[in-house]
């Protein structure tokens, strides 16, 4: 019997297959289908502080606009009993998901203010989430902001959140750090229970006819996995925090590679959106088949087996590898 279990964020998971934050996590019925298909845990879509603030301001502005200006129409909308602004709807979703699912439910949070991060983290904990993923989606557009300041902001944030909640906290990062390994170790030092590598930043596209910048979303593909493998393999053993791979996990082979690099879990989104929730079951079956064929007994057995520390020639992860690849490239005559 193949042992697929793994431990992530202090939780025992039946397998390393985790459904990461996506629209599939917005509804209870799809969450249940994810569980049925074999997801060992789910990360819910992020609670966006910015969106909450924006919705509040917009509602206020539009309910007030034109009011008390004209005798016949002192208002234009009925005063409804209540508005589920703020995190209420999200927290209720966490609560419902938790009570319906047997697998761990990981909340996800995207804040803008320190107060917002801390308050909402607490609320997600109170709503019953098993763990919390901090989805730090920050684009330092201000040329005056230094790399050191950005790093410090991440560190402060993790420290503040860790100090205010008791549940395990994962940190989802982008890869654009000058000294990734150092940042990871410092985050580890602030108490991050897991590092989730890496966030995919959606790049806007240009509409040439309308001369407008439009939001653009492409699903990931397996080739994006390589960047994650690279860094998980490097970090494995250097940080206490669990490592998770997200972005580019599409097949059982991708999962195996992630495990061998040193990840505790492999998170999937694009593949499920592309091929349907049932794809998760196929990946799990393929995983078992591969392990059987190659006589692996457990996932634990392979975790980190091809990390920087564990390979015979770590230079493949280093600059030497770069030169080798370039040298091997066929030159034009």
């Amino acid at each position, binding site marked *: 019997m193949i042992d697929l279990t793994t431990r992530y964020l202090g939780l025992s998971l039946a397998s390393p297959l985790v459904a990461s934050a996506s629209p599939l996590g917005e509804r209870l019925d799809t969450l249940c289908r994810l569980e049925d298909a074999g997801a060992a845990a789910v990360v819910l879509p992020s609670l966006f502080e910015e969106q*909450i*603030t924006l*919705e*509040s*301001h*917009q*509602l*206020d*502005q*539009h*309910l*007030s*606009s*034109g*009011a*008390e*200006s*004209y*005798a*016949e*129409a*002192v*208002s*234009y*909308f*009925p*005063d*409804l*009993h*209540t*508005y*589920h*602004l*703020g995190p209420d*709807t999200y927290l209720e979703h966490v609560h419902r998901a938790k009570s319906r699912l047997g697998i761990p439910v990981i909340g996800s949070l995207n804040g803008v203010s320190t107060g917002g991060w801390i308050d909402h983290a607490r609320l997600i904990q109170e709503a019953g989430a098993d763990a919390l993923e901090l989805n730090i989606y920050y684009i330092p557009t201000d040329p005056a902001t230094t790399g050191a300041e950005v790093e410090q902001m991440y560190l402060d944030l993790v420290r503040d959140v860790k100090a205010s909640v008791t549940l395990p906290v994962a940190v989802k990062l982008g890869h654009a750090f000058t000294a990734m390994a150092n940042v990871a170790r410092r985050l580890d030092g602030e108490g991050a229970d897991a590092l989730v590598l890496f966030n995919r930043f959606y790049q806007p596209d240009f509409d040439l006819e309308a*001369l*407008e910048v439009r939001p653009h979303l492409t699903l990931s593909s397996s080739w994006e996995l390589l960047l994650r493998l690279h860094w998980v393999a490097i970090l494995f053993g250097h940080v206490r925090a669990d490592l998770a791979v997200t972005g580019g996990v599409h097949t059982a082979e991708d999962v195996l590679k992630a495990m061998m690099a040193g990840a505790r879990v492999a998170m999937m989104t694009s593949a499920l959106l592309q091929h349907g929730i049932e794809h998760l079951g196929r990946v799990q079956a393929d995983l078992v088949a591969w392990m059987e064929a190659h006589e692996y007994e457990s996932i634990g057995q392979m975790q980190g087996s091809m990390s920087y520390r564990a390979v015979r020639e770590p230079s493949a992860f280093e600059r030497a590898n770069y030169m080798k690849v370039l040298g091997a490239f066929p030159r034009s005559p």
Partner: protein
Amino acid sequence: MPARSGGLFALPLREARRVNVTMPQLTLDANEAVAEVAYRLSDVIAIYPITPSSGMGEWADQWAAARRPNLWGTVPSVVEMQSEGGAAGALHGALQTGALATTFTASQGLLLMIPNLYKIAGELTPAVIHVAARSLATQALSIFGDHSDVMAARATGFALLASGSVQEAMDLALVAHAATLESRIPFLHFFDGFRTSHEVAKVTPLPPEAVRALIDDDRVRGHRGRALSPERPSIRGTAQNPDVFFQAREAANAYHRACPAIVERLLARFATLTGRAYRLFDYVGAPDAERVVVLMGSGAETAHETVEHLVAAGERVGVLKVRLFRPFSAAAFVDALPATVRTLAVLDRTKEPGSAGEPLYLDVVAAVAEAASGGASRFATPPRVIGGRYGLGSKEFTPAMVKAVLDEAGRPAPRNHFTVGIHDDVTGTSLEWDPDFSTEDPRAVRAVFYGLGADGTVGANKNSIKIIGEETAHHAQGYFVYDSKKSGSVTISHLRFGPRPIRSSYLVGRASFVACHQWSFLERLDVLSVAEPGAVFLLNSPYPPDQVWAHLPGPVRETIVAKALRLFVIDASRVAREAGMGGRINTVMQTCFFAVSGVLPRDEAIAAIKRAIAKTYGKRGDPVVQRNFAAVDRALDGLYEVAVPATTAGGCGRRPAVPAGAPAFVRDVLARIMRGEGDALPVSALPADGTYPSGTARWEKRRIAAEIPVWDAGLCIQCGKCVLVCPHAVIRAKVASPEVLAAVSPALPSVPAGWRELDGLRYTLQVSADDCTGCAICVEVCPAKSKSEVRHKALTMAPLSPDHDEQAARWGAFLALPDLDRDRLNPGVVKDVQLLPPLFEFSGACAGCGETPYLKVLTQLFGDHTIVANATGCSSIYGGSLPATPWAAGRDGRGPAWANSLFEDNAEFGLGMRLALDRQRAYARELVTRLADLPGDLAAAIMDADQSSAEGIAAQRTRVAALKAALSALDGNDARELLSVADALVKTSVWIVGGDGWAYDIGYGGLDHVLASGHDVNVLVLDTEVYSNTGGQMSKATPRAAVAKFAAGGKATPKKDLAAMAMTYGTVYVARIAMGANDTHTLRALREAEAFPGPSLVIAYSHCIAHGYDLRHGMDQQKAAVLSGHWPLLRFDPARTARGENPLQLDSRPPTLPLRTYAYAETRYTMLAHSDPQAAARLLAEAEEEIRARWAFYEHWAAMPVSPARGKSPA
């Protein structure tokens, strides 16, 4: 220097803080107070919005949506009907079936109910109707208060019970409900529209046990026992013959006679239960009064205050407040008067032209005469009775006027049938009053605030009243005067707080505190005229404290010095901006008011303001609350007292209301209204028949925009979209020769005209800075972007330059440019239409209005030969509100003629115009044929004229001019007759215009009939999918899933498909248009509709402030509405049927945009998603399904084979 922390008023408001009262006090308006009572005592509530009563229905609907129970623990059914006539019918039916039922209305709404009122009363049915009494439309519409409506119902058999204050309205509402059950006489309970319905006042609520005790359940069950039921069948509503009708009519006498005693008894019971005593007629004044004024409603409170003042000064005067006007108890009336009275001055707040006197006066004359002739009069000498009118249409009624009436009553030969409150220099009816006479309580704080509609002043003041009302034992009152404009509107708040009960049902005339929330008001309004000497003046100033004085206009400086005012300033706009509040300075100014006035200790005031903020905005989310808190916290740091110099030298004068070149009527009459001096206009200044000149809005330069669009000629592609969508016609284009441009104004920027056929001419685009509202919709639609910086467009918003005069001069020069001849332009092309002069300009509609661009383009296309019949609603308000109208004439003096009849009858009104024009035309043609002396060629050309184009119409005009010239040389009756109707030979289009409330609901019966009539009328429905003008109530055009008032849970039924309904006739031209989605289609549909020789119906998607988003994106939302399939564009042309073609053409593509993407850009949808996400999701899914089904239905219809014989179009 910082403001001092102490209070400025002698008023010891603080001492009275938090006095222990047994019952928590409420601060609310009468609409809410009355609705509360009516809701608790009803099973069925039938409603329909009409100002100023709409609030009562809105409350009832909201409470029902929140499942709030009535007295018997069950939730009343609240149903919106299609009209007040419908509401009255539903009321009647509910009553007949045993329900306790009520409705709320006013004005025309009450008139529409009258037939049912006779029925309900005739059948002795307990019922109460609550009326916020309002004027009736006569020479003009007035939304304001008087008793014309209720007086029109006095013969119905309903009891008429009057309340004069918010407290009374609440109390007597309960008494009305109790009395109707006991007497079986239905009650019409009324209070003054706006003055009472909208006055926010502190009241003592009704103890629940008093309500319970006053409503007798046996009577309720008695009512149910009389209901129609198949268990005990009976019939009601028989037809009776001459033999018995009369007797049967008299059979109810005993009930009417018993009614006053029942009311008196219940009032006594009420007094026992609550400690508040009322009588059928309440006398206040000297026990030995010789002069007594008699009146009802809010004016009686002012009279009460005046009489107390005069009695204290030793005068023998009194006031008799009439509460139960019908059934009129002459005996109780006479008994209530002091026996010493020598003259009764009876005041009616209504006008009954041609009568022997107004209703209350006549009743009093009869009562006094009957008492005298009965032989047992309590008066030694029967008192003399004089009568007069006051307060029509909310005209101010002040203590000075009461005194004038009492003074008149004391004269040896007092005038009768007088008026008071106006200057009647035509028929000399008016009494003079002393403007300096005042009874204001010197111990009260009297504050006046000038605000801009958008800055939140009124909302903040309502909060202040609640704070003072609920945090102190003091009495509090707030009354708010609004503008007739919907954009850039001025609001004036009148607040009183004091230790004595406030009976002042008139505006604050002597303010101890004046706040001006917008600097620009100083340039056009005399805001300090109300300030009493020594008063405090709080000013929102963009200038720092040490520079303020230098910028103040001269007249303001003079008043400050002359009245020794204390001046406080704050740059509230900056503070608000820094706190993230945008243009909403309300919280900042409110904080300053409390800080400066010292009404409460500063810390307590700030805590109270924050509590009020949390209460008001808490529902909208913590970020909103925090932002307001930040504004409070920052406000005091920016508040300064300015040392007032002794000299007033320098400073500019006040800006003239209209330019010097304005016509005399505009200068002498309308400009005074614009300046807020309309009250001083004498009767002779105003047209007796309600006919006013058009084209007057062009003289009213309001200068309300902070930013205006600036044209980059180099980028412009001259597409004309900005000109087309501008809701206010403030952005216009012209094409002229370089020579003309140089001659008229070399300063106007221009570029070569981008028309092949206009080679050599130059194109210029100009914005009227003084008229622009700054809505920015033109910038949003502008497609021309800079190639090197895409955010820069051919139009970009920029702060209004301080050099107003230069801007105005440029606009003047632009207007002076000649217009291109129409025959050089293609009216089917947007690019060309931009060059046609608009004859609808500078309306007071909301900034970014979605309706007005359609009206404007209508006038560009057909303005010189159009008559408009306009249903009451937004379009009649921005189209016809004094002081100025946007309907205008062109250079040739021709332009749309416009009239508004009513809300419900507009289609019929327009049809009547058509019938008259057709008859005159037919008659003129008969005369042309009959008159042998006319030049034969001319007659033939006139008779055969093709007037299907602008050129054809112009040619016919030339012929008619020739005809008139020929006729003037002829003798004989036929020639004179033809001369008087010759204009009818030129084509005149009738456009019937209105909103969806009219077309889908109240006027639908008439509209349907007119469409079926086959006559050549054009109907334009400006569909905002909601009753916009009365504040966003649901109509049958409201889409499923949208929230509206009366649909607080989201509308659960689909939008009525008016287009499909009209299409089923097969003989009506129908189009559904959305300018933002396809402007060429809009032009095509309007032109086809006008050309179609039968009835046409054009339904125009009109984005609206009641949709809840920034209207600068209005045109994008129009496009989204079409792309989502919510608003499929179509044309249905019966003429195609005759050619064997399917009449229906779908002009937009199958839905491609998810409905949610369109809908969730608007608050009317998102607020439900926030409030009840599950219901929102369900309704939206249903709406999506509807869209699919409707599209399939249209596609099927458009693809059906057509037999040419079917559906002949009318000739």
